[in-house]
């Protein structure tokens, strides 16, 4: 059975979300709250920000990111994340594949629309 468009888009988002996390960390470490907020504010990517913390935990266990706890003067300790070499390599590989994939899909959709 062919899944409906909504299901396909949801599956697609699941697949790319971890690379969006890695992309946000490419320029340097970030406080987990800022990271989660940035992902939460991306149009239509995530609706429950709390579900991103388990994703960060998985990326940490898989060695894609590292984290450090730091004391905060204004509240509880803060966890900062940074990308690892493995994470960076995974992001680069995905980015090159993604560009080809996106272009191919765009082309086919445009061809289909004008046919």
């Amino acid at each position, binding site marked *: 059975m062919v899944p409906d468009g909504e299901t396909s888009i949801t599956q697609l988002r699941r697949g790319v979300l971890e690379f969006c996390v890695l992309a946000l960390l490419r320029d340097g470490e970030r406080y987990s709250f800022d990271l989660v907020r940035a992902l939460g504010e991306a149009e239509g990517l*995530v*609706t429950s920000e709390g579900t991103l913390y388990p994703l960060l935990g998985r990326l940490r266990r898989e060695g894609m990111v590292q984290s450090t706890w730091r004391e905060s003067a204004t509240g509880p300790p803060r966890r900062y994340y940074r990308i690892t070499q493995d994470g960076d390599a995974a992001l680069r590989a995905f980015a090159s594949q993604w560009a080809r994939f996106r272009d191919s899909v765009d082309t086919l959709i445009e061809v289909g629309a004008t046919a």
Partner: protein
Amino acid sequence: MTPDHLHPLAEDYLRRLRRVCRRLPPERLGELSAEIEGHLAAAIPPGAGDDEALEVLERLGPPGDVIEAERSAVGGSADRRRWRERAAVILLVLGGFAAGVGWLVGLVLLWRSRLWTTRDKVIGTLIVPGGIATALLVVVLTGTKRRCVGFAAVDPSTGAPVGHAAMHCTPSAGPSAASTALQIALLLFFVLGPLVSAVYLARRARDRSGFIGPGLGGYGQLST
């Protein structure tokens, strides 16, 4: 610990989160709880009203969504290391048949795993050392003793045996009802003990690794 400055609605959210996450390994529960507590502290300024707090909690999603995402995320990692826990459980039950070495390997896997608590490991070790193979040993050791007598024809002139010898065995004495009951009880304990212990360990590993099984999907709370 929940800081005093957290909004009461945020404190209530954290309590509910810890309740639904209570089956996670303690260290992971502590991490997740601390990160979300930090999120709440950063997102809800001191003195914020209920409306502002509720908006933050709505964006965060219900605690059930968080634990579901955690189970899904841990399940991916757990799949790769679950073989150790599976091997440990199987070897603890049946490894004793491999000259006892299999059971010892199972014991090492049991104590090296981070999915079981010390209490679980003690239960897995003591119920029952050697696993089901111990039941066989118990049967042999407590089996009915028999008295055997050999027969052979003897040449009257030489006194040497002639032809084939024969052996006849009879029970030396019938076991008493009490000793039979004891044997059955021991047998049941040594057979059922390892099986019950294995089921217990498997369930504990499943609960503590956070995976419930396939079908939870990835991050089910993605916008659609």
